[in-house]
Protein backbone atom coordinates (compact mmCIF):
# COMPACT_ATOMS: atom_id res chain seq x y z
CA UNK A 1 0.00 0.00 0.00
CA UNK A 2 1.17 3.51 -0.66
CA UNK A 3 1.32 6.05 2.13
CA UNK A 4 -0.32 9.46 1.78
CA UNK A 5 2.66 11.11 0.10
CA UNK A 6 3.12 8.73 -2.78
CA UNK A 7 0.86 7.10 -5.32
CA UNK A 8 1.28 4.46 -7.97
CA UNK A 9 2.41 5.24 -11.48
CA UNK A 10 2.16 1.84 -13.08
CA UNK A 11 4.07 -0.40 -10.66
CA UNK A 12 6.31 2.45 -9.46
CA UNK A 13 5.61 4.70 -6.51
CA UNK A 14 5.90 8.40 -7.24
CA UNK A 15 5.15 11.51 -5.16
CA UNK A 16 1.44 12.39 -5.42
CA UNK A 17 2.06 15.80 -6.95
CA UNK A 18 4.22 14.29 -9.68
CA UNK A 19 1.83 11.63 -11.01
CA UNK A 20 -0.04 13.99 -13.33
CA UNK A 21 3.16 15.22 -14.93
CA UNK A 22 4.31 11.61 -15.49
CA UNK A 23 0.94 10.81 -17.07
CA UNK A 24 1.20 13.94 -19.20
CA UNK A 25 4.61 12.81 -20.46
CA UNK A 26 3.14 9.44 -21.46
CA UNK A 27 0.34 11.00 -23.46
CA UNK A 28 2.50 13.75 -24.97
CA UNK A 29 4.62 10.93 -26.28
CA UNK A 30 1.80 8.86 -27.78
CA UNK A 31 -0.74 11.57 -28.80
CA UNK A 32 0.08 11.74 -32.49
CA UNK A 33 -0.39 8.01 -33.02
CA UNK A 34 -2.90 7.34 -30.30
CA UNK A 35 -5.72 6.24 -32.62
CA UNK A 36 -3.51 3.92 -34.64
CA UNK A 37 -2.15 2.37 -31.47
CA UNK A 38 -5.63 1.90 -30.06
CA UNK A 39 -6.67 0.03 -33.17
CA UNK A 40 -3.58 -2.15 -33.13
CA UNK A 41 -3.54 -2.82 -29.41
CA UNK A 42 -7.18 -3.78 -29.14
CA UNK A 43 -7.42 -5.27 -32.64
CA UNK A 44 -10.10 -2.66 -33.33
CA UNK A 45 -12.32 -3.87 -30.51
CA UNK A 46 -12.11 -0.52 -28.70
CA UNK A 47 -14.61 0.78 -31.25
CA UNK A 48 -17.14 -1.80 -30.08
CA UNK A 49 -16.47 -0.95 -26.42
CA UNK A 50 -17.18 2.69 -27.22
CA UNK A 51 -20.34 1.82 -29.16
CA UNK A 52 -21.59 -0.10 -26.16
CA UNK A 53 -20.87 2.91 -23.95
CA UNK A 54 -23.03 5.07 -26.24
CA UNK A 55 -25.84 2.49 -26.07
CA UNK A 56 -25.74 2.50 -22.27
CA UNK A 57 -25.52 6.31 -22.09
CA UNK A 58 -28.86 6.63 -23.93
CA UNK A 59 -28.24 10.31 -24.65
CA UNK A 60 -31.08 12.21 -26.37
CA UNK A 61 -31.33 15.18 -28.66
CA UNK A 62 -30.86 18.51 -26.86
CA UNK A 63 -29.00 17.06 -23.87
CA UNK A 64 -25.69 18.20 -22.40
CA UNK A 65 -22.83 15.72 -22.29
CA UNK A 66 -19.42 16.00 -20.67
CA UNK A 67 -16.70 13.72 -22.00
CA UNK A 68 -13.80 13.68 -19.55
CA UNK A 69 -10.35 12.51 -20.64
CA UNK A 70 -11.99 12.44 -24.06
CA UNK A 71 -8.70 12.09 -25.90
CA UNK A 72 -9.18 12.06 -29.60
CA UNK A 73 -12.94 12.43 -29.36
CA UNK A 74 -14.34 9.02 -30.31
CA UNK A 75 -17.23 9.28 -27.84
CA UNK A 76 -17.71 13.04 -28.29
CA UNK A 77 -18.06 12.67 -32.05
CA UNK A 78 -21.00 10.28 -31.65
CA UNK A 79 -22.56 12.30 -28.85
CA UNK A 80 -22.36 15.50 -30.89
CA UNK A 81 -24.33 13.86 -33.70
CA UNK A 82 -26.99 12.65 -31.29
CA UNK A 83 -27.48 15.79 -29.20
CA UNK A 84 -27.83 17.94 -32.32
CA UNK A 85 -27.61 21.73 -32.51
CA UNK A 86 -29.76 22.30 -29.40
CA UNK A 87 -27.52 20.06 -27.32
CA UNK A 88 -24.01 20.55 -26.06
CA UNK A 89 -21.00 18.28 -25.85
CA UNK A 90 -17.93 19.35 -23.90
CA UNK A 91 -14.79 17.45 -24.79
CA UNK A 92 -12.09 17.71 -22.15
CA UNK A 93 -8.70 16.23 -21.52
CA UNK A 94 -5.97 17.07 -19.05
CA UNK A 95 -3.44 16.78 -21.83
CA UNK A 96 -3.18 19.68 -24.30
CA UNK A 97 -1.64 17.52 -27.05
CA UNK A 98 -4.48 14.98 -26.89
CA UNK A 99 -7.14 17.70 -26.74
CA UNK A 100 -5.70 19.43 -29.79
CA UNK A 101 -5.70 16.12 -31.66
CA UNK A 102 -9.32 15.59 -30.65
CA UNK A 103 -10.42 19.09 -31.68
CA UNK A 104 -8.70 18.85 -35.07
CA UNK A 105 -10.25 15.47 -35.69
CA UNK A 106 -13.80 16.57 -34.86
CA UNK A 107 -13.44 19.74 -36.93
CA UNK A 108 -12.29 17.58 -39.83
CA UNK A 109 -15.49 15.57 -39.43
CA UNK A 110 -17.48 18.78 -39.81
CA UNK A 111 -18.58 18.83 -36.17
CA UNK A 112 -18.49 22.29 -34.65
CA UNK A 113 -21.86 23.77 -33.76
CA UNK A 114 -22.51 22.09 -30.43
CA UNK A 115 -18.99 21.17 -29.34
CA UNK A 116 -16.87 22.93 -26.75
CA UNK A 117 -13.34 22.09 -25.66
CA UNK A 118 -11.62 22.58 -22.33
CA UNK A 119 -8.37 21.40 -20.81
CA UNK A 120 -9.66 20.00 -17.56
CA UNK A 121 -8.37 17.95 -14.66
CA UNK A 122 -11.19 15.53 -13.81
CA UNK A 123 -10.54 16.10 -10.09
CA UNK A 124 -11.43 19.80 -10.25
CA UNK A 125 -14.01 20.44 -12.92
CA UNK A 126 -14.80 24.06 -13.81
CA UNK A 127 -18.52 23.42 -14.37
CA UNK A 128 -21.55 24.44 -12.35
CA UNK A 129 -23.44 21.95 -10.18
CA UNK A 130 -26.18 19.95 -11.92
CA UNK A 131 -25.28 21.05 -15.44
CA UNK A 132 -24.91 17.85 -17.47
CA UNK A 133 -27.31 15.05 -18.41
CA UNK A 134 -24.48 12.60 -18.92
CA UNK A 135 -20.81 12.44 -17.96
CA UNK A 136 -18.46 9.89 -19.46
CA UNK A 137 -14.82 9.08 -18.88
CA UNK A 138 -13.38 6.59 -21.35
CA UNK A 139 -10.02 5.01 -20.54
CA UNK A 140 -9.16 7.97 -18.35
CA UNK A 141 -10.03 7.24 -14.74
CA UNK A 142 -7.06 4.95 -14.18
CA UNK A 143 -4.69 7.85 -14.95
CA UNK A 144 -6.34 10.17 -12.45
CA UNK A 145 -4.37 10.60 -9.22
CA UNK A 146 -7.37 10.91 -6.86
CA UNK A 147 -10.05 8.75 -8.42
CA UNK A 148 -12.57 9.22 -5.62
CA UNK A 149 -12.31 12.98 -6.01
CA UNK A 150 -12.92 12.70 -9.75
CA UNK A 151 -16.01 10.53 -9.17
CA UNK A 152 -17.34 13.05 -6.65
CA UNK A 153 -16.88 15.83 -9.20
CA UNK A 154 -18.66 13.78 -11.85
CA UNK A 155 -21.55 13.41 -9.43
CA UNK A 156 -21.58 17.13 -8.63
CA UNK A 157 -21.84 18.34 -12.24
CA UNK A 158 -24.66 15.91 -13.08
CA UNK A 159 -28.31 16.93 -13.08
CA UNK A 160 -30.64 14.84 -10.95
CA UNK A 161 -31.57 11.93 -13.21
CA UNK A 162 -28.26 12.23 -15.03
CA UNK A 163 -25.90 9.31 -15.41
CA UNK A 164 -22.17 8.78 -15.33
CA UNK A 165 -20.37 6.12 -17.31
CA UNK A 166 -16.86 4.91 -16.69
CA UNK A 167 -15.37 2.90 -19.53
CA UNK A 168 -12.12 1.46 -18.32
CA UNK A 169 -9.83 -1.53 -18.46
CA UNK A 170 -10.69 -3.91 -15.70
CA UNK A 171 -9.90 -7.40 -14.50
CA UNK A 172 -10.59 -10.49 -16.63
CA UNK A 173 -13.14 -12.79 -15.06
CA UNK A 174 -11.51 -16.08 -16.03
CA UNK A 175 -8.01 -17.32 -15.17
CA UNK A 176 -6.95 -18.59 -18.62
CA UNK A 177 -7.98 -15.30 -20.21
CA UNK A 178 -6.10 -13.38 -17.51
CA UNK A 179 -2.93 -15.37 -18.28
CA UNK A 180 -3.15 -14.78 -22.01
CA UNK A 181 -3.95 -11.13 -21.42
CA UNK A 182 -0.88 -10.69 -19.16
CA UNK A 183 1.32 -12.25 -21.76
CA UNK A 184 -0.14 -9.99 -24.41
CA UNK A 185 0.10 -6.77 -22.46
CA UNK A 186 3.61 -7.23 -21.07
CA UNK A 187 5.22 -8.68 -24.21
CA UNK A 188 3.25 -7.68 -27.28
CA UNK A 189 2.11 -4.19 -26.22
CA UNK A 190 5.52 -2.70 -25.39
CA UNK A 191 6.90 -4.22 -28.59
CA UNK A 192 4.09 -2.61 -30.60
CA UNK A 193 4.74 0.66 -28.77
CA UNK A 194 8.41 0.52 -29.68
CA UNK A 195 7.57 -0.13 -33.33
CA UNK A 196 4.97 2.57 -33.78
CA UNK A 197 5.71 5.38 -31.38
CA UNK A 198 9.33 4.41 -30.57
CA UNK A 199 8.24 4.40 -26.96
CA UNK A 200 7.96 1.05 -25.21
CA UNK A 201 7.94 2.60 -21.71
CA UNK A 202 4.68 4.46 -22.22
CA UNK A 203 2.94 1.26 -23.23
CA UNK A 204 4.49 -0.65 -20.38
CA UNK A 205 3.01 2.05 -18.15
CA UNK A 206 -0.42 1.48 -19.75
CA UNK A 207 -0.22 -2.26 -19.04
CA UNK A 208 0.93 -1.68 -15.46
CA UNK A 209 -1.62 1.02 -14.74
CA UNK A 210 -4.37 -1.34 -15.86
CA UNK A 211 -3.25 -3.90 -13.25
CA UNK A 212 -3.23 -1.23 -10.53
CA UNK A 213 -6.75 -0.03 -11.38
CA UNK A 214 -9.51 -1.09 -8.98
CA UNK A 215 -11.46 -4.18 -10.01
CA UNK A 216 -15.14 -4.15 -10.98
CA UNK A 217 -16.63 -4.48 -7.50
CA UNK A 218 -14.21 -2.00 -5.92
CA UNK A 219 -14.97 0.64 -8.52
CA UNK A 220 -18.68 0.07 -8.09
CA UNK A 221 -18.21 0.65 -4.35
CA UNK A 222 -16.26 3.84 -5.08
CA UNK A 223 -19.08 5.12 -7.28
CA UNK A 224 -21.64 4.38 -4.57
CA UNK A 225 -19.38 6.19 -2.06
CA UNK A 226 -19.37 9.23 -4.37
CA UNK A 227 -23.17 9.32 -4.12
CA UNK A 228 -24.19 7.48 -7.28
CA UNK A 229 -27.23 5.25 -7.12
CA UNK A 230 -28.27 2.16 -9.08
CA UNK A 231 -24.57 1.51 -9.72
CA UNK A 232 -23.93 -1.43 -12.00
CA UNK A 233 -21.24 -2.63 -14.32
CA UNK A 234 -21.08 -4.50 -17.61
CA UNK A 235 -18.10 -6.71 -18.38
CA UNK A 236 -16.96 -6.61 -21.98
CA UNK A 237 -14.56 -9.02 -23.67
CA UNK A 238 -14.41 -11.26 -20.61
CA UNK A 239 -13.83 -8.41 -18.17
CA UNK A 240 -10.77 -6.98 -19.93
CA UNK A 241 -12.90 -3.87 -20.08
CA UNK A 242 -15.87 -2.90 -17.94
CA UNK A 243 -18.41 -0.12 -18.18
CA UNK A 244 -19.66 1.18 -14.84
CA UNK A 245 -22.83 3.19 -14.77
CA UNK A 246 -24.39 5.13 -11.93
CA UNK A 247 -27.18 7.69 -11.65
CA UNK A 248 -27.58 10.86 -9.69
CA UNK A 249 -31.13 10.58 -8.42
Amino acid sequence: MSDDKTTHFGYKQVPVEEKSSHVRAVFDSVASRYDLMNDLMSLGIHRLWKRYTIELAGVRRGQRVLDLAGGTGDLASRFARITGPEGQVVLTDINAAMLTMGRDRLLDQGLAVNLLYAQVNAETQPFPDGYFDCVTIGFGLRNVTHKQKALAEMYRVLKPGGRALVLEFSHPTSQPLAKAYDLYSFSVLPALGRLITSDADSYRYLAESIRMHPDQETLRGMMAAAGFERCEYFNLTGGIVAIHRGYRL
Partner: protein
Amino acid sequence: MTPASPIPDAALAALETAINHYIALDPEGAARLGPLAGRLIALEFKGFGNRLYFIPGAEGFQIYGAYDAEPDCLLRGTSLALARLGLSRRKEDALFSGQVEVEGDTALAQRFGDFMAGLEIDWEEQVSRLTGDALAHALGSRLRAAGHWGRRSLDILGLDLKEYLQEEGRLLPTRYELEGFLDEVDRLRDDGERLAARVERLHRLLQTGSRAGCGAGQDEEGPPC
Protein backbone atom coordinates in the same frame (compact mmCIF):
# COMPACT_ATOMS: atom_id res chain seq x y z
CA MET B 1 -32.57 -1.73 -21.30
CA THR B 2 -33.84 -4.10 -23.96
CA PRO B 3 -32.25 -7.53 -23.99
CA ALA B 4 -28.99 -7.76 -25.86
CA SER B 5 -29.54 -7.98 -29.56
CA PRO B 6 -28.57 -11.24 -31.21
CA ILE B 7 -27.15 -9.10 -34.02
CA PRO B 8 -23.49 -8.70 -33.06
CA ASP B 9 -22.30 -5.13 -32.54
CA ALA B 10 -19.50 -5.69 -35.01
CA ALA B 11 -22.05 -6.49 -37.72
CA LEU B 12 -24.01 -3.35 -36.85
CA ALA B 13 -20.85 -1.26 -37.01
CA ALA B 14 -20.19 -2.69 -40.48
CA LEU B 15 -23.81 -2.08 -41.51
CA GLU B 16 -23.55 1.50 -40.26
CA THR B 17 -20.42 2.11 -42.32
CA ALA B 18 -21.98 0.55 -45.42
CA ILE B 19 -25.23 2.52 -45.19
CA ASN B 20 -23.41 5.79 -44.49
CA HIS B 21 -21.10 5.21 -47.39
CA TYR B 22 -24.16 4.68 -49.56
CA ILE B 23 -25.85 7.80 -48.20
CA ALA B 24 -22.72 9.85 -48.83
CA LEU B 25 -23.14 9.14 -52.54
CA ASP B 26 -26.40 11.10 -52.53
CA PRO B 27 -25.53 14.40 -50.76
CA GLU B 28 -28.93 15.99 -51.43
CA GLY B 29 -30.68 12.98 -50.00
CA ALA B 30 -28.38 13.09 -47.00
CA ALA B 31 -29.32 16.74 -46.45
CA ARG B 32 -32.92 15.60 -45.93
CA LEU B 33 -31.69 13.75 -42.85
CA GLY B 34 -30.60 17.03 -41.23
CA PRO B 35 -33.98 17.92 -39.68
CA LEU B 36 -34.26 14.41 -38.23
CA ALA B 37 -30.85 14.66 -36.51
CA GLY B 38 -30.78 13.10 -33.09
CA ARG B 39 -34.26 11.54 -33.28
CA LEU B 40 -34.39 7.94 -32.13
CA ILE B 41 -36.15 5.52 -34.47
CA ALA B 42 -36.54 1.89 -33.43
CA LEU B 43 -37.42 -1.04 -35.66
CA GLU B 44 -38.73 -4.07 -33.81
CA PHE B 45 -38.74 -7.40 -35.59
CA LYS B 46 -41.84 -9.34 -34.62
CA GLY B 47 -41.22 -12.96 -33.78
CA PHE B 48 -37.58 -12.24 -32.91
CA GLY B 49 -38.17 -9.44 -30.44
CA ASN B 50 -34.91 -7.69 -31.19
CA ARG B 51 -34.65 -4.07 -32.16
CA LEU B 52 -32.51 -1.89 -34.33
CA TYR B 53 -32.11 1.75 -33.36
CA PHE B 54 -31.43 4.37 -36.00
CA ILE B 55 -30.23 7.84 -35.04
CA PRO B 56 -30.03 10.13 -38.09
CA GLY B 57 -27.38 12.83 -38.30
CA ALA B 58 -26.26 15.29 -40.94
CA GLU B 59 -24.18 12.71 -42.75
CA GLY B 60 -25.84 9.40 -42.07
CA PHE B 61 -27.12 7.12 -39.36
CA GLN B 62 -25.77 5.72 -36.18
CA ILE B 63 -27.17 2.21 -35.81
CA TYR B 64 -27.31 0.37 -32.51
CA GLY B 65 -28.68 -2.97 -31.38
CA ALA B 66 -29.78 -1.48 -28.07
CA TYR B 67 -30.23 2.05 -26.81
CA ASP B 68 -31.08 2.90 -23.27
CA ALA B 69 -33.78 5.48 -24.01
CA GLU B 70 -37.41 5.54 -25.14
CA PRO B 71 -37.53 5.85 -28.95
CA ASP B 72 -39.32 8.79 -30.62
CA CYS B 73 -41.04 6.29 -32.85
CA LEU B 74 -41.23 2.54 -32.95
CA LEU B 75 -41.99 0.56 -36.09
CA ARG B 76 -43.00 -3.00 -35.29
CA GLY B 77 -43.58 -5.71 -37.85
CA THR B 78 -42.33 -8.94 -39.32
CA SER B 79 -38.97 -8.69 -41.05
CA LEU B 80 -40.72 -8.87 -44.37
CA ALA B 81 -43.23 -6.14 -43.57
CA LEU B 82 -40.44 -3.83 -42.38
CA ALA B 83 -38.47 -4.53 -45.52
CA ARG B 84 -41.55 -3.76 -47.61
CA LEU B 85 -41.92 -0.47 -45.76
CA GLY B 86 -38.42 0.59 -46.67
CA LEU B 87 -38.22 -0.74 -50.17
CA SER B 88 -41.63 -0.57 -51.76
CA ARG B 89 -42.85 2.56 -53.48
CA ARG B 90 -46.24 2.09 -51.91
CA LYS B 91 -45.43 2.12 -48.22
CA GLU B 92 -49.04 2.99 -47.49
CA ASP B 93 -49.87 -0.66 -48.18
CA ALA B 94 -47.74 -1.81 -45.29
CA LEU B 95 -48.67 1.07 -42.96
CA PHE B 96 -52.43 1.05 -43.48
CA SER B 97 -53.01 -2.66 -43.72
CA GLY B 98 -51.65 -2.94 -40.19
CA GLN B 99 -48.64 -5.07 -41.12
CA VAL B 100 -46.39 -2.46 -39.53
CA GLU B 101 -47.47 -0.97 -36.24
CA VAL B 102 -46.26 2.52 -35.52
CA GLU B 103 -45.96 3.89 -32.02
CA GLY B 104 -44.97 7.45 -31.16
CA ASP B 105 -44.25 10.07 -33.79
CA THR B 106 -45.90 8.74 -36.96
CA ALA B 107 -44.72 11.70 -39.05
CA LEU B 108 -41.16 10.82 -38.13
CA ALA B 109 -41.79 7.19 -39.13
CA GLN B 110 -43.14 8.32 -42.48
CA ARG B 111 -40.17 10.59 -43.15
CA PHE B 112 -37.76 7.84 -42.17
CA GLY B 113 -39.47 5.43 -44.60
CA ASP B 114 -39.50 8.09 -47.32
CA PHE B 115 -35.82 8.70 -46.83
CA MET B 116 -34.88 5.04 -47.04
CA ALA B 117 -36.99 4.50 -50.15
CA GLY B 118 -35.91 7.73 -51.83
CA LEU B 119 -32.13 7.43 -51.75
CA GLU B 120 -30.83 8.18 -55.20
CA ILE B 121 -27.20 8.16 -56.03
CA ASP B 122 -25.74 10.77 -58.40
CA TRP B 123 -23.01 8.77 -60.08
CA GLU B 124 -22.15 11.67 -62.40
CA GLU B 125 -21.20 13.91 -59.48
CA GLN B 126 -19.03 11.15 -58.06
CA VAL B 127 -17.24 10.65 -61.37
CA SER B 128 -16.81 14.41 -61.89
CA ARG B 129 -14.68 14.56 -58.80
CA LEU B 130 -12.19 12.38 -60.57
CA THR B 131 -12.47 13.59 -64.15
CA GLY B 132 -13.91 17.14 -64.10
CA ASP B 133 -17.47 18.19 -65.00
CA ALA B 134 -17.31 18.16 -68.82
CA LEU B 135 -16.06 14.64 -69.20
CA ALA B 136 -18.27 13.39 -66.42
CA HIS B 137 -21.34 14.95 -68.08
CA ALA B 138 -20.54 13.43 -71.47
CA LEU B 139 -19.93 10.12 -69.80
CA GLY B 140 -23.07 10.55 -67.75
CA SER B 141 -25.24 11.26 -70.84
CA ARG B 142 -23.94 8.18 -72.60
CA LEU B 143 -24.41 6.09 -69.55
CA ARG B 144 -27.93 7.44 -69.04
CA ALA B 145 -28.82 6.68 -72.66
CA ALA B 146 -27.31 3.24 -72.30
CA GLY B 147 -29.03 2.93 -68.98
CA HIS B 148 -32.44 3.76 -70.43
CA TRP B 149 -32.00 1.32 -73.25
CA GLY B 150 -30.66 -1.25 -70.86
CA ARG B 151 -33.47 -0.71 -68.39
CA ARG B 152 -36.12 -0.97 -71.12
CA SER B 153 -34.54 -4.12 -72.44
CA LEU B 154 -34.18 -5.51 -68.98
CA ASP B 155 -37.78 -4.63 -68.15
CA ILE B 156 -38.99 -6.48 -71.22
CA LEU B 157 -36.67 -9.38 -70.61
CA GLY B 158 -37.66 -9.39 -66.96
CA LEU B 159 -41.36 -9.42 -67.80
CA ASP B 160 -40.90 -12.18 -70.33
CA LEU B 161 -38.80 -14.24 -68.00
CA LYS B 162 -41.18 -13.68 -65.10
CA GLU B 163 -44.14 -14.68 -67.20
CA TYR B 164 -42.38 -17.79 -68.41
CA LEU B 165 -41.23 -18.87 -64.93
CA GLN B 166 -44.52 -18.14 -63.24
CA GLU B 167 -47.19 -18.86 -65.80
CA GLU B 168 -45.73 -21.26 -68.33
CA GLY B 169 -43.06 -23.15 -66.43
CA ARG B 170 -44.90 -22.90 -63.09
CA LEU B 171 -41.43 -22.83 -61.55
CA LEU B 172 -41.93 -19.74 -59.40
CA PRO B 173 -44.93 -18.44 -57.47
CA THR B 174 -46.57 -15.21 -58.53
CA ARG B 175 -46.42 -12.18 -56.31
CA TYR B 176 -49.94 -12.86 -55.05
CA GLU B 177 -49.13 -16.48 -54.30
CA LEU B 178 -45.96 -15.43 -52.49
CA GLU B 179 -47.73 -12.78 -50.45
CA GLY B 180 -50.49 -15.24 -49.65
CA PHE B 181 -47.92 -17.78 -48.54
CA LEU B 182 -46.08 -15.23 -46.37
CA ASP B 183 -49.35 -14.12 -44.81
CA GLU B 184 -50.15 -17.74 -44.07
CA VAL B 185 -46.75 -18.20 -42.44
CA ASP B 186 -47.45 -15.17 -40.26
CA ARG B 187 -50.92 -16.50 -39.46
CA LEU B 188 -49.58 -19.95 -38.66
CA ARG B 189 -47.05 -18.44 -36.29
CA ASP B 190 -49.77 -16.38 -34.58
CA ASP B 191 -52.02 -19.44 -34.39
CA GLY B 192 -49.18 -21.45 -32.92
CA GLU B 193 -48.62 -18.81 -30.26
CA ARG B 194 -52.35 -18.67 -29.50
CA LEU B 195 -52.52 -22.44 -29.24
CA ALA B 196 -49.54 -22.50 -26.89
CA ALA B 197 -51.22 -19.84 -24.74
CA ARG B 198 -54.46 -21.84 -24.76
CA VAL B 199 -52.72 -25.07 -23.76
CA GLU B 200 -50.94 -23.19 -21.02
CA ARG B 201 -54.25 -21.76 -19.79
CA LEU B 202 -55.94 -25.16 -19.87
CA HIS B 203 -52.99 -26.64 -18.06
CA ARG B 204 -53.28 -23.98 -15.36
CA LEU B 205 -57.03 -24.50 -15.12
CA LEU B 206 -56.50 -28.23 -14.77
CA GLN B 207 -53.95 -27.74 -12.03
CA THR B 208 -56.05 -25.27 -10.04
CA GLY B 209 -59.13 -27.44 -10.63
CA SER B 210 -57.42 -30.58 -9.41
CA ARG B 211 -55.94 -28.78 -6.41
CA ALA B 212 -59.35 -27.41 -5.53
CA GLY B 213 -60.82 -30.91 -5.98
CA CYS B 214 -58.28 -32.53 -3.66
CA GLY B 215 -58.40 -29.71 -1.10
CA ALA B 216 -62.19 -29.95 -0.77
CA GLY B 217 -61.88 -33.63 0.11
CA GLN B 218 -64.65 -34.70 -2.26
CA ASP B 219 -66.06 -38.18 -2.37
CA GLU B 220 -65.43 -40.80 -5.07
CA GLU B 221 -67.69 -39.08 -7.57
CA GLY B 222 -65.52 -35.98 -7.67
CA PRO B 223 -62.87 -35.44 -10.34
CA PRO B 224 -59.77 -37.69 -10.02
CA CYS B 225 -56.91 -35.97 -8.19
